[in-house]
Structures are given as C-alpha cells and as structure tokens.
C-alpha cells in the first residue's frame, strides 16, 4: 500500500510538473521552455537532489508511459482527416517521406559506425527522426535504449525547429509540400510546430509526414538492424 502511494505520488508529480511547464510554454512560447525538456529537467533534478533511484520513480512513471501505445493508435485519426490531402498528393508525399526515412536511417548508421559506436547505441540513434512514442518502441524492439532514443528524437526535433527554415531556404525548398514533408519527416512534432508558422497547408503536410514516416520507420527499422548485423 505504501508503495502504491509512492507510485501514485510520482505519477501525480509528473502530471503536475507537465501541466505547469506546458502552461508556461503556452504563455511565453520560448523554445527552451518546451514542456518535455523542462519537465524532464525538473524531475531529473528532483531525483538527483532527493537521491531517488529511477526505478522508484518509474513505479509511478510507468503508469503514464502505458498511454504511449494507445496514443500511437490515436494518430490514425488525424491522418484519416487528412486523407484527401494525402491521396491527391500521394506520389510526392510518399516518395519524399520514404527517401527521407531511408536517408535518415542510412546516414545515422553510417556516421555512428564511422566512429565505432556500439551496436546498442547505433540502434538507439536509428529511429531518431520518428515521433517519440514510435521511436522509443522501435529502439526497444531492436535492442536499443528507449529513454536515450527519446533524447536523440528531441535533438532531431530541436534541430528541425531551429535550423529547419534556414536549411529549406538555402536549398530553395519553397513549396508547401516540400517544406511540410521536409519538416515532418526529419523533425516530427517539433517540425510540425514550425510548419504551422508557414501556414495551414505546410502544417497539414508536416503532420501527415510525421505519421507516415513513423510507420515507414517502424517497417524499415528491423530491416536496417538486420542489414547492420550482416
């Protein structure tokens, strides 16, 4: 009973910190106030200062984590609502996303192998362009480390969010479809947030790209891992 109470405490604490940082983020709109980043930092400091083992925190934390699976399923709804956009532009959308996912995974493997990282870390970096819940599951299934995978997903997201527009400009990628697919395929939800600043069409493209690249990535991940083991 005491342990359940402790678990409930950590679950409630996580939700409370998230709601607090989320409302601060919505109010001030500063990239560094990103709720995931800020909540993670605050909770990490609490654990370190209070000398609380991660496993103890996860007794409650894992309750929240169980919502990841259903949340991935729920992504089918926004994709379904974008189906007209998807099917009228099927070829450019699918070819762009597929190329992006392949380039992302191939370059990730190439660079990590170049510096002789362990197989575990290579498989952790592999799904970095996918949306966090999918990336964590893919990394976990392949033998990578899910929580580290989430960190790399965040690095990819911030990269796309901060540097994406400059890169797109430089490459003369100036159409709604090019910008949206580029941002969504490489930087998932963060890229989609940036795409919103261009306009509704870019944002729709980006959210379609985020969802479809997660599906492609989940399909391609085991193939890439298998090639790696050859």
């Amino acid at each position, binding site marked *: 009973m005491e342990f359940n109470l402790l678990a409930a405490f950590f679950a409630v604490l*996580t939700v409370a910190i*998230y709601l607090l940082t989320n409302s601060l983020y919505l109010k001030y709109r500063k990239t560094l106030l990103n*709720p*995931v980043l800020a909540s*993670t930092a605050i*909770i990490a400091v609490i654990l*370190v200062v209070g000398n609380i083992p*991660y496993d103890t925190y*996860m007794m409650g*934390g894992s309750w*929240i*984590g169980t*919502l*990841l699976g*259903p*949340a*991935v*399923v*729920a*992504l*089918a*709804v*926004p994709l*379904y609502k974008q189906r007209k956009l998807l099917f*009228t*532009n*099927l*070829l450019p959308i699918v070819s*762009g*996303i597929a190329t*992006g996912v392949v*380039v*992302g995974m191939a370059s*990730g493997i190439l660079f990590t192998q170049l*510096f002789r*990282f362990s197989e575990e870390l290579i498989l952790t*970096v592999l799904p*970095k*362009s996918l949306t*966090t*819940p999918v990336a964590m599951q893919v990394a976990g299934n392949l033998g990578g480390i*899910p*929580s*580290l995978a989430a960190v790399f997903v965040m*690095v990819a997201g911030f*990269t*796309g969010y901060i540097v994406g527009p400059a*890169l*797109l400009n430089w*490459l003369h*990628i100036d159409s709604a479809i*090019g910008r949206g*697919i580029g*941002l969504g*395929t*490489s*930087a998932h*939800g963060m890229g989609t947030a940036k795409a919103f600043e261009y306009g509704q069409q870019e944002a729709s493209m980006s959210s379609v*790209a985020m969802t479809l690249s997660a*599906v492609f990535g989940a399909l391609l991940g085991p193939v890439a891992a298998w090639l790696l083991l050859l």
Partner: protein
Amino acid sequence: MKIIHIILQLLAITGFYLIGEGVQDFFNIPLPGSIVGFLLLFAALMLKIYPLQWIDSGAHFLLAFLSLYFIPATVGVVEYGELFSGKGMLLIPIVIISTFLTMAAAGWVSQYTAKASPERKERS
C-alpha cells in the same frame, strides 16, 4: 455527457491497441503492436467499418497531452549521464547532421516530384 463519450472512446482506442498487440504477437509481425493497432484503426476508418465520430473526441483528448506520456521515459536519461561526458557527445552532432540530410532529402524529393507531376499539384 461529453466526458462519458471521451471515456468510451478512450476505451475503444485502447481496444484497437490491444488488438494490435495481439495480432502482432500472434503473427510475429516485426512492427510494434501500437503501429499494428494504428494500421487497423486507419483501415477501419477508411473502409467505413468504424465511424469517425465514435473515436474523434477520444483521440483528440489523448493526443492533446501526447508529450506527457514520454516524460517518464526521457527522465531515464539520468541513468546515462556519463555517456555524454565522453565520446558519446559525438552522437549529438551526428544526429544534427543526419537530421539536415533527412530534411533535405524528404523536402527536395517531394517538391521535385510534385512539380514533375502537375496534375497532382498540391491542393488543400
């Protein structure tokens, strides 16, 4: 009444998720069960087997807090602090450069393909 709708729809989403996990396990599909559930739900919506309004507000509610669900996992990074003090630091620029390449490839190919096939030009 709205809250009851949302709860029932969340149960439906969880149902699709559990079916996805079951199907994945039974056929040994090399995909996460959640992605199998996602594909089943998308197919059910496309084929009009399952109506959108029976899942729409539940999905909207669940996705509104999406980033909350992976915070417990990202906190797990406290266990890997030492990784980023050494050679592991290199993984950050690797991810950044790989993200550039991904964006360039995806954006360029989709823009080029869209322009090459004008009858499929983007419409909203």
